[in-house]
């Protein structure tokens, strides 16, 4: 008979949603009234001083949560989190990287949506820079990638960017299928 308490701890720990007593009992193949006192014990152990996590009952289940008094520290950690690319940012960056020099209208034509916001984010993050203005009516700005872009992606130069063709060549069958489709 294995020690059930650490198993319960592990089960609750890895679950994104709160885990119910019924779920735990089912996984362990045990009676609920054998599991419940173990949950209470676990909860008490975590509630003891010197711990950063609490076992709480939420939405009909059990879930580990950080102690509320540490919220400020947790917030600080999340603030220091490295910049996360949104899908839109990545799309735009990819288009600029591969099609530069490029103007905003071309980016938007390719993406099919307004890209001003995401362009600005990329300019702010210094991944993209303004190369100049195009000699056409309206003198739109021309965008390209920056030195920081190369550093961020660990590239020596732009020629180091893999081409789509090269990626397709990895799996010859797959690329030929794509070429054949309309």
């Amino acid at each position, binding site marked *: 008979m294995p020690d059930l308490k650490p198993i319960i701890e592990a089960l609750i720990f890895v679950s*994104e949603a709160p885990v119910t007593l019924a779920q735990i009992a089912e996984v362990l193949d045990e009676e609920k009234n054998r599991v419940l006192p173990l949950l209470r014990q676990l909860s008490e152990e975590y509630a003891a001083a010197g711990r950063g996590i609490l076992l709480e009952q939420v939405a009909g289940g059990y879930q580990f949560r950080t102690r509320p008094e540490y919220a400020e520290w*947790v917030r600080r950690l999340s603030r220091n989190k490295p910049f996360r690319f949104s899908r839109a940012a990545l799309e735009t960056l990819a288009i600029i990287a591969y099609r530069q020099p490029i103007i905003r209208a071309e980016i938007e034509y390719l993406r099919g949506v307004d890209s001003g916001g995401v362009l600005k984010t990329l300019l702010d993050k210094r991944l993209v820079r303004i190369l100049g203005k195009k000699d056409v009516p309206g003198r739109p700005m021309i965008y390209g990638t920056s030195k920081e872009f190369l550093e961020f992606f660990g590239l020596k130069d732009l020629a180091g960017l893999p081409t789509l063709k090269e990626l397709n060549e990895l799996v010859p069958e797959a690329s030929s299928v794509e070429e054949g489709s309309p």
Partner: protein
Amino acid sequence: MPYAVKLEQFEGPLDLLLHLIRKNEMDIYHIPIAEITAQYLATIDAMQSLNLDVAGEFLLMAATLLHLKSRLLLPQAEEETGEEEEEDPRAELVRRLLEYQKYKEAAGQLDARLVLGRDVFSRRFPSPELAALEEDEFQSVGIYELVEVLRDMLSNLPKDSYHEVTVEQLSVTERINQIMSSLAGREQLPFADLFSARPNRAELIVTFLAMLELVKLRMVRLLQNTRFGTIWLFPAVAGEALENLELDEDHLGYA
């Protein structure tokens, strides 16, 4: 059939060769090429007779083995034309086999590790604590962002509205009062809710001036959760104080 082996189990010709050498307890440094070639070819035949698609690499290796066999059959003296002593023709194959075995071994060691998601599990999802934080983690919006929003909205207006004569012209003060009353009793209000569905130029400008004034008077705070995200209005003073607020239009200087 002499070689009862599962053919699909071989990753490639090197793998098959290693298997044959081991199985026959051959000395890897003195592989009896004739013998191993025979076994190798027999295996490939078996693969083909089972209609297995024999990859080109297997056939290439077969050719290499046959070539080695023929070279070993040649009298040594005739082949030694250079001044250096010729390397054993099998040497490269031996090197490749030993090298391949090394990585095959390393692959097994990787597989034997405690693999995440198979043997051990971590919390590979955003914690509810962080998810909640990200929602109400607002950045302060400066005047610059406000003006940008204004410019964007103006540029999206249909051209003809420039010449539209508005019948009901709102004053800045009226607008301030309107904003404060829609904000009363609420914790926050999306900035965009202050405008009608198709605001005209005058409405936009008056509303913006009212907003700027309220910010200047520190009666509201404008916050944004992400750059270019929704701009939210927060009452900066307690709800009761708002209702008793008297505004002198002349004092504001917008009349």
